[in-house]
């Protein structure tokens, strides 16, 4: 397993995608056949179910190290990862176990049905036969998340560099159905188990943020304007009675959205369309937070399917009955698309992106500012003559977002992050004034630079009221301006309001607690928006 440990270390230390790819290529060049397949399986979520509960592993670990529970928890909150905490706390190994990755995986699979005593024997023996880094990987292999900073995309790019095979095809191959016991590494890469001709996607056409006065882009008549939706940009492919859904991140997400797949089953024609995967209910778009509940799940319960139905708003058409139509002007593609949508029987979940009618740019600005009411992020401006170009191209497509709402708040709690951020206080809870007290209005995790986070962490260390545990109450002294996309009344939150997408806009060092917003001014925004 040493080469696997080295790979993980090499991948983790760098944030350069190329360095990660090189480390992966190096591993694939030298590793045993079965290890290569396991690596792909692990990084694509095809992992055996966890054979031992983490609470048991924690218990066994504390038995060995003979330290009080609270000290274990303090260590855990300093490290931010359970598997790593245990790996660091356990004593030095007494012997050396040297087995390739696939043997470990085979043993871990066999462990599942065994008795608790047998499991304990196995885990304890492994712990005492591995050094710290290997122990950490072992703990990760047994269970929990294996978040190592390798996306499927990076993995696929490495495999593509290794084999020369098109990355999208490899994406389909590794996500497709394959059995680690029967497939060979080369067959997996060659995609013998899939039909890539059917699933092959087109590169997405992207937009720049509008960075100029609208009058400078010409006559409104030359532009097609639509709402910009905040879901998952997707490409639906229907070819030869097969349906595939690709996300913007170039991942195949077909299995996550069975109802979208179902929408297209009854079409006679073949096509490739571009659009947005959105949570839709009662004819309106739900916020992204709702859609998020549907993502990255292995199984989607019936209740979840009913609570958060997902549909597809289509923007564009790329292929029609085998013909690539991307070079046709948008106005022509739009007619094809309208024609296609009219064939649909389900008009609630499959819709065409509405064209906004307006005469002047000023009028459009008013429409943009009202977009938030529809849970839209703003507007998309597309030149009627534009092709479906690859990637971004200046002057063809613009995105014009709604300005976010902002308030000034004070930080009252801080918590350490996880992963790369586990050493710093990165997760903050903010409050506004309510008479003489403070009420929390939002949590935010992003928006500060690394340097600012380090400074805030230092402040938290020096000004925390608690000394133990993961959450620190801090002196209400640091003022931040937070931005958010929307606000609604909410019974779930103490303050009575829920903010949509709160994030830190900037640290207001020029302000004090006397300057922060009150709950009354915050609630007033509900009327304004």
């Amino acid at each position: 397993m040493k080469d696997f440990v080295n790979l993980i270390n090499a991948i983790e230390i760098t944030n350069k995608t190329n360095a990660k790819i090189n480390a992966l290529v190096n591993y694939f060049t030298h590793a045993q056949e079965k290890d290569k397949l396991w690596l792909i399986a692990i990084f694509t979520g095809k992992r055996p179910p966890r054979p031992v509960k983490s609470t048991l592993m924690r218990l066994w670990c504390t038995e060995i190290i003979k330290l009080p529970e609270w000290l274990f928890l303090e260590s855990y909150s300093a490290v931010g990862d359970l598997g790593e905490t245990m790996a660091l706390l356990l004593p030095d190994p007494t012997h050396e176990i040297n087995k390739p990755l696939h043997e470990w995986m085979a043993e871990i699979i066999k462990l599942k049905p065994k008795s608790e005593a047998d499991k304990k024997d196995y885990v304890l023996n492994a712990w005492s036969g591995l050094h710290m880094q290997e122990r950490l990987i072992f703990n990760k292999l047994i269970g929990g998340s294996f978040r190592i900073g390798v996306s499927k995309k990076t993995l696929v790019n490495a495999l593509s560099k290794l084999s020369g095979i098109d990355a999208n095809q490899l994406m389909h191959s590794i996500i497709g159905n394959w059995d680690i016991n029967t497939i060979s590494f080369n067959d997996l890469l060659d995609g013998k188990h899939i039909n890539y001709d059917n699933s092959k996607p087109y590169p997405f056409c992207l937009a720049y943020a509008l960075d100029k006065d609208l009058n400078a882009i010409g006559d409104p008549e030359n532009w097609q304007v639509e709402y910009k939706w905040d879901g998952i940009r997707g490409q639906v492919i229907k070819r030869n009675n097969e349906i595939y859904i690709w996300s913007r991140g170039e991942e195949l997400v077909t299995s996550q959205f069975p109802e979208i797949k179902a929408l297209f089953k009854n079409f006679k024609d073949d096509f490739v369309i571009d659009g947005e995967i959105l949570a839709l209910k009662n004819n309106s778009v739900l916020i992204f937070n709702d859609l998020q509940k549907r993502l990255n799940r292995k199984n989607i319960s019936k209740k979840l399917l009913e609570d958060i139905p997902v549909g597809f708003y289509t923007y564009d058409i790329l292929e029609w009955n085998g013909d690539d139509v991307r070079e046709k002007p948008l106005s022509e593609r739009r007619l094809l698309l309208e024609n296609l949508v009219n064939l649909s029987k389900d008009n609630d979940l499959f819709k065409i992106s509405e064209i906004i009618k307006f005469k002047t740019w000023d009028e459009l600005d008013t429409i943009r500012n009202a977009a938030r009411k529809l849970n839209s992020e703003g507007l998309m401006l597309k030149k009627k003559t534009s092709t479906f170009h690859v990637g971004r191209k200046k002057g063809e497509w613009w995105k014009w977002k709604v300005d976010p709402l902002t308030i000034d708040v004070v930080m009252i709690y801080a918590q350490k992050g996880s992963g790369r951020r586990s050493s710093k206080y990165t997760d903050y809870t903010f409050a506004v004034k309510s008479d003489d007290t403070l009420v929390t209005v939002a949590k935010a995790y992003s928006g500060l630079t690394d340097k600012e986070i380090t400074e805030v962490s230092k402040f938290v260390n020096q000004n925390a009221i608690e000394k133990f545990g993961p959450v620190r109450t801090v002196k209400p002294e640091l003022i931040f301006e937070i931005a958010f996309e929307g606000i609604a009344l909410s019974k779930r939150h103490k303050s009575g309001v829920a903010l949509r997408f709160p994030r830190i806009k900037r640290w207001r060092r020029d302000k004090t607690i006397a300057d922060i917003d009150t709950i009354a001014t915050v609630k007033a925004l509900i009327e304004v928006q």
Partner: protein
Amino acid sequence: MKLVKFTKKGIYCIPGKFYLDPWFPVDYAVISHAHADHSRSGMSHYLCHNHSKPIIQHRIGQDINIQSLAYNETLTVNGVKVSFHPAGHIIGSSQIRLEHKGFVVVFTGDYKTSSDFLTIPFESVKCHEFITESTFGLPIYNWLPEAVLQKQMVDWVIDNKANNRTSVFLGYSLGKAQRIMKLLDNTDQMFVHKAIHNTNNAIKSVDIELPETTLLEPDFNKNEVQNKIIILPPGLLGSRLLKRIPNAATAICSGWMQIRGNRRWKNVDAGFPVSDHADWNGLLSAVRASEAEKVYVTHGSQATFSKYLNEIGIASAEVKTEYGDDELNTSET
């Protein structure tokens, strides 16, 4: 009877009328070691170990009023016997022992209990009251043996060279830099930044031998340093000088690098857990060996370490100081 008290200016010896590593200007300061958070400017009089003297003068000024002693040599100040004992943290670092009417207090400053083959190793001193640091006072901190660490670092350098890369280590110019030099001695030619070069010269002035290094000139020749070893102060991470180094692979050496999250936080190519502080077991063994009846815990994980000491039957209290106030800064550790 009380020999020391903890004040806003620093740790004060009541009968001796002097401070230990004060953080505000005072008349008489007894200094454990030359790091900036323990040895500050503005003191009317400094007392330190012989090896710290030239370094403190180099850093604060040649004209300061400074007196120094050898290890185990005693000076009586207002009736209090003061002596320095090896702390193993950096060159010249000392535990400060105070004795008054048979009552003994030891202040550790910063220390490490394992040998680094460069500084004089830590020697435990029995006392009634022990004032200990706790920078790495959590059981997750257990340092690798020096030889294992050395192999990791040397392997990394050799691997870099094979891949046409220059190995750049970032380490505080006093302490960590010399430690890195020692660990990498005889691996390849080592270039050091001017700040490190000057500190090295101050250290060498008291006849301490250091591994051979070359000064990295500001207008260095890229071909000369390519694939070699360069040691820079941590402040230069992301600097233009670092960007000029051809194919640089950067590494941070610090105890914090034991944790994956910390390694990933810094944008470097490698992190080696090289620390000049005691690890968890080092702290515990130092506390036990002191046989102190009361242990005061300063900078680091003072709350945690002191709570644990109380639980295992060693009377302890935490003390707020201004040392190592930047717990998140990896530079001096």
